[in-house]
């Protein structure tokens, strides 16, 4: 797609901004502020995790050893790679190639779906073996900290899973719009911000992987 068919840059400018550059910086700053609140949302769970891991270190280690580490490892590789393809999609968008951006974003969405598929396999296994949170725990391990591990396991991976679904939705919408030529090399802020959200989801998982799977 060439810039000739794209709307002129001036049409992207909202009336309360002086220039497109200022509008872009404001949009980025707003996104970073939102991402900061997301970080703190997950931090609350990580704080709870730290406390209970401190109190029940041995039980947490034992419960973690019962997880399928290979799923965590594969999912980490999948998410990291999907972040890479999102970055490549942004690179296409900066060059005015909306169709290329769409291809890379939809590829990333497919990897998000693969991630969720592995998560489903894992959750199905937990439900089958009774590795459920808190008082619903009916698994084999005896320690008092084990059910608490699964409380935090489901809260953290569950909230992260919701974020993966939201991220896939955002990438799909923005990717399809980019494919229709909604953005240009001069203006592709939505592509950039959608990418930022996906990268944050990736970063959260980068911390979840060692904390949950590699104790």
């Amino acid at each position: 797609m060439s810039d000739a068919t794209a709307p002129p840059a001036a049409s992207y400018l909202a009336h309360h901004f002086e220039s497109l550059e200022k509008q872009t910086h404001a949009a980025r700053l707003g996104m970073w502020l939102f991402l900061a609140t997301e970080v703190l949302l997950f931090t609350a769970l990580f704080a709870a995790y730290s406390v209970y891991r401190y109190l029940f270190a041995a039980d947490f280690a034992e419960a973690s050893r019962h997880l399928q580490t290979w799923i965590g490892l594969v999912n980490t590789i999948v998410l990291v790679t999907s972040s890479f393809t999102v970055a490549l999609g942004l690179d296409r968008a900066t060059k005015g190639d909306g169709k290329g951006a769409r291809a890379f974003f939809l590829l990333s969405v497919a990897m998000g779906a693969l991630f969720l598929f592995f998560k489903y396999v894992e959750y199905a296994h937990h439900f089958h073996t009774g590795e459920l949170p808190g008082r619903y725990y009916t698994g084999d391990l005896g320690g008092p900290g084990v059910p608490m591990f699964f409380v935090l396991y489901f809260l953290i991976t569950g909230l992260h899973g919701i974020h993966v679904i939201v991220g896939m939705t955002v990438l799909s919408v923005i990717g399809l719009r980019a494919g229709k030529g909604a953005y240009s090399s001069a203006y592709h802020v939505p592509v950039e911000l959608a990418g930022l959200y996906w990268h944050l989801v990736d970063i959260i998982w980068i911390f979840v992987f060692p904390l949950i799977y590699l104790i």
Partner: protein
Amino acid sequence: MADPGAVARNEQEHVSHVARYAVVWAALLAFTILTWALSRLHIGGGWGLAVALVIAATKGTLVVLFFMHLWDQRGANRIVILTSLVFVALLIGLTLSDNATRFKLANPPGSEGALPAGPTDYGGPPAVPPRGRTVEN
């Protein structure tokens, strides 16, 4: 960083970041395998956790700086993310040091130095009658 607008213009001048993205991706994959391999060694004394967190922080920094372009962006965005990290440290550090410095018996049953766990204690909030099981009257 002398001219904060330079980067926005650079991006519009079609500077290609593909090579940089590829290097970061390769580094992220290498660190992922490294942290997994090191966890197999079962390093004792809390060092395993420290190493895992350092590797995770390194990976996170790579993503933030290069995939999320904080390296190229202006100061305000950096301050936002650094501020959130300060609050991460406060939230986790203060909560953890509360539990770590308590009179041990005040910690949940079953944890080290506290009361032994009863049959229904799971280290969570205090006794609620279990659901789905018959409670004797």
